């Protein structure tokens, strides 16, 4: 009986502590941008899911591809239907880790460099990535920012023959998330 009590207290304690260290947002922002000779492509998503565990350094993103807004509706439709095939692959995800989490004091205000490593999945293709970002800690929460490049070919996103060379093969991705303490 004693064993069981110890066990349950331990599990309970563990879950409580992990929750206390989780920061989350459901309306983070991700934008992408590319400037090809034919088309400048720009899209914004302001319904990005992101969560960070400050204890373990685990960080995850879940992005609904259909929530990317383009200036031209036709381009948005082409993006979903032909490029990223949103019906087949509705979400893009990142399952990663802040590798230098130990060096970041999440309880102290300030701006910290973060090294993030993990598995990025877009269009059903998973690649290991290693990118840099910053965390700005304030009383409002943790503000995470990052900017990195993604090669379309790495994720099997094909550009039609007619416009090859006219659309950039690499796009710039900007991440901007304001993470708040997770409450059940």
């Amino acid at each position, binding site marked *: 009986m*004693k*064993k069981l009590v*110890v*066990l349950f207290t*331990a*599990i309970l304690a*563990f879950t409580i502590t*992990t929750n206390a260290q*989780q920061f*989350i947002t*459901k309306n983070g922002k991700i934008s992408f941008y590319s400037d090809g000779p*034919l*088309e400048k492509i*720009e899209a*914004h998503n*302001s319904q990005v*899911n992101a*969560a960070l*565990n400050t204890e*373990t350094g*685990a960080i*995850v993103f*879940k992005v609904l591809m*259909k929530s990317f*807004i*383009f*200036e*031209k*509706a*036709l*381009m948005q*439709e*082409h993006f*979903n*239907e*032909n490029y990223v*095939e949103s*019906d*087949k692959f509705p979400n893009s*995800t990142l*399952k*990663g880790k802040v590798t230098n989490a130990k060096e970041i004091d999440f309880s102290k205000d300030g701006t910290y460099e973060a090294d993030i490593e993990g598995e990025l999945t877009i269009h059903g293709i998973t690649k290991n990535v290693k990118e840099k970002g910053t965390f700005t800690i304030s009383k409002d929460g943790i503000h995470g920012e990052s900017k990195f490049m993604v090669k379309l070919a790495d994720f099997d996103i094909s550009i*039609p023959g*007619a*416009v090859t060379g*006219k*659309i950039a093969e690499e796009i710039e991705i900007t991440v901007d998330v304001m993470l708040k303490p*997770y409450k059940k």
Partner: protein
Amino acid sequence: MKKIFSIIPIILIAISLNLVAQDDMMDLFDDGPTTDYTYATFKTTRISLGQSVENPANGNLIFDIQHHFGRLNEGAYEFFGLDQATLRLGLQYGITDWLSVGIGRSSFEKTYDGSVKAKLFRQSKGAKNMPVSISYFGNIGINTLKFTDTTRTDYFSSRLTFVNQLLIARKFSSAISLQLTPTFIHRNLVETNADDNDVWALGAGGRFKLSNRISLNLEYYYVLSKQTAKDFHDSFTVGFDIETGGHVFQLFFTNSRGIIEQHFIPRTTGDWLKGDIHFGFNISRTFVLKKPKEFKE
């Protein structure tokens, strides 16, 4: 010893919790069932000739250039029909995501048209389940040919024609979309006694994607019998949507010369079996007049 045994399961559980931590974190985002609305049932606002359930996006102005050339069986002298053409220039504008208006002018009988299209239901699954998308399309046509019949009075009302359609479509998969189009057309004045003023028709159309960028479109309008003179045939069209980056071209073969519904549904004179086939195309250019809020700076 006993103490150690009681600690082991705790450690094991703690480790396993850590391993699945990232998947668990994904569950934090779960808000329960959401409604997933179908998009791109058809590539443009027309299947080929007739209307599809698609509307211009909110704040988008679309400039249409539509051509139906002459008949292929006119031979080399008429350059297989390319020497003649019926042309329509039109504008469509999306007032909201579900309501649009349009104007246009066809060279066929120098007809002006004004139209409205409204989405009534959208196909969706998830929290809200709807098997089909349903839209209403209506237009008024005004024939502006010079009046030559000296035995009649030239009433303005005699020049008017009206079209009402329900567009009922389902996207079965990313490759196949089908549409049924019950149609009611009223003409204030008709050419002969054999033609009724009111014509009921049922259209059926579909899109079959051959690749991510090319689709085969078929369209047929069945005019309920004995409402039009014998020399009229049902309209049948075989076409292709070709998407090139930012534009969609629609190329097709049809037995209809007319471009708007009141012309091609009850008044198609061509017979496919005799080779009365017109080559035609639609091209359009979209202007974004109202930018999405993400682009307003």
